[in-house]
């Protein structure tokens, strides 16, 4: 017997129990008795935790007033954060000069918006602006000494401002430097390869704290008398080099994941090494490394708090020193929650951006 279909079967929608909210819940939350129990327990635990956190941070919290005596409610005393907000944001940057930092933020924000978003297709000018103009402008703005701007010592920089300076400089330096190191590590020239491997392995083999100590305490001992770099610059160099070594390994992973055929196809078309790298290999390698690159960035962002040990007052250390103020003793909880929230906002933002970018760059060749 032969079955012959004379008509094509039409495409039907899937059964309703498989789709929508109900289908999702059935599959993910209530698929078996054990899952039902787990769902209920987890739901109860998170409700308890969240509701007490919300009442502590918002409902029972104190926002009004100027001193700790104004904190009469049972929740958090945000008055502490409010009164010290300027210091938390800018450190000891002179109050009448703080607009310069804000202008710098705006310049960076404009650049980031055009480079990272989808608004303009051709990224040439935004990139020149962000990587060429903005660093110079920010240096002039923040440090002063030009155009009648009063010079502000880096020792006065602090708070979130300092954290952002540390993080963004090390991020902007470590990515290109990491790429160069990764290419060097895979180079066919033995000397280049040895230098890169040596650098990467040495830096990865020591803790960041050691690097920072070296940069701030040891380095001046080796330099000739009278030559002295700014403490912040030393920390920046240390952090950037440290991050580059990690970035190099991340990028190397991406490079190794690109099939050999891509390089062969590029070569067979007559592209040179740098053209092949720049147009074919690196765009793909960096794309697949986005999660790891952002992971490194996030780690780096949080590692900036370690500058505390060489006496720089970043966001965490300035809040910490605020809690030892006798006017505000016992405010550590509020302080640390606030710091955690600020870090979370930045790190979560980076994470979401990387997911968006991955989806945008997805061209259907990977399933």
């Amino acid at each position, binding site marked *: 017997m032969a079955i012959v279909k004379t008509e094509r079967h039409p495409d039907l929608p899937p059964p309703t129990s498989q789709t929508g909210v109900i289908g999702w819940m059935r599959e993910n939350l209530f698929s078996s008795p054990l899952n039902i129990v787990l769902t209920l327990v987890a739901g109860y635990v998170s409700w308890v935790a969240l509701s007490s956190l919300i009442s502590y941070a918002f409902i029972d919290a104190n926002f009004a007033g100027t001193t700790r005596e104004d904190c009469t409610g049972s929740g958090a005393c945000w008055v502490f954060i409010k009164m010290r907000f300027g210091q938390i944001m800018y450190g000891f940057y002179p109050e009448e000069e703080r607009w310069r930092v804000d202008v710098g933020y705006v310049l960076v924000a404009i650049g980031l918006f055009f480079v990272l978003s989808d608004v303009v297709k051709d990224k040439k000018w935004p990139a020149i602006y962000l990587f060429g103009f903005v660093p110079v402008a920010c240096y002039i703005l923040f440090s002063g000494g030009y155009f009648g701007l009063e010079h502000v010592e880096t020792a006065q920089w602090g708070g979130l401002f300092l954290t952002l300076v540390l993080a963004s400089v090390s991020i902007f330096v470590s990515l290109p430097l990491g790429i160069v190191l990764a290419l060097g590590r895979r180079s066919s020239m033995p000397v280049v390869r040895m230098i890169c491997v040596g650098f990467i392995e040495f830096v990865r083999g020591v803790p960041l704290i050691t690097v920072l100590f070296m940069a701030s305490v040891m380095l001046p001992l080796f330099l000739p008398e009278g030559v002295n770099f700014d403490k912040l610059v030393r920390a920046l160099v240390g952090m950037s080099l440290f991050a580059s070594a990690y970035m190099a390994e991340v990028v190397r992973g991406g490079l190794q994941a690109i099939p050999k055929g891509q390089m062969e196809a590029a*070569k067979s078309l007559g592209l040179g090494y740098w053209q092949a790298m720049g147009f074919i290999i690196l765009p793909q390698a960096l794309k697949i490394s986005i999660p790891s690159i952002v992971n490194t960035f996030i780690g780096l962002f949080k590692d900036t708090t370690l500058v505390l040990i060489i006496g720089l007052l970043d966001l965490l250390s300035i809040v910490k020193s605020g809690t030892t103020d006798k006017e505000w003793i016992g405010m550590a909880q509020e302080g640390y929650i606030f710091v955690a929230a600020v870090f979370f906002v930045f790190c979560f933002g980076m994470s979401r951006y990387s997911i968006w970018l991955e989806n945008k760059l997805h061209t259907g060749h990977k399933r």
Partner: protein
Amino acid sequence: MSDAAMTKQAGMDVAIQIIGMHKWYGDFHVLKDINLTVERGERIVVCGPSGSGKSTMIRCINRLEEHQQGQIIVDGIELTNDVKKIDEIRREVGMVFQHFNLFPHLTVLKNCTLAPIWVRKTPKKEAEATAMKFLERVKIPEQAMKYPGQLSGGQQQRVAIARSLCMNPRIMLFDEPTSALDPEMISEVLDTMISLAEEGMTMICVTHEMGFAKTVADRVIFMDAGEIIEQAPPAEFFENPQSDRTKLFLSQILHNA
């Protein structure tokens, strides 16, 4: 060396000349004393059992593999370690790979225009017009704005052929261009290659498609264990193979066909 001297006299009619070429992978002797002269406009099919060095040989012609002994002269230029000469040869020699090797992050059109723009310094407009011309020739102009991952295997391979043609190569190398394709897509790629052959392109094609060899090739080369065992025009090669190894190979593949 007298061979080389003779070809110099023969002049422009020789496209590729390989003289006494040897290659090793570590201790393994992959290619042994390869001698081959390809005239301009000649279509050559290279066949042989897997691991016989067919791909390695044609990959030596554009220096994707390095030979250790002997000479390879492409278009009058001898392949040495001189990077400039290697680049010069690669501009004139197109290559189509078994696994297409399209650039997955670029659209089909950009795949085709990248090398002309950056290697040949062709203006973008002109490169795009050329690319569209060749995409039409391989019958997929409507896919120009898609990414390679959105095309079928046969379409991808045709894009790869178009991409090579955009560089206006004088010689085309095909490295098992249909081996990675589903059976129903093989003919569309072969048709493209046949039409290319009919236009007089110098072609060296490693393939197991004996039908293609019979219709198109001027000469069939049989390789086994790193050596060229036999070469003959297709009619003679298939009707009257000389060596035992060739006979065995032909009986094995034609049995399945």
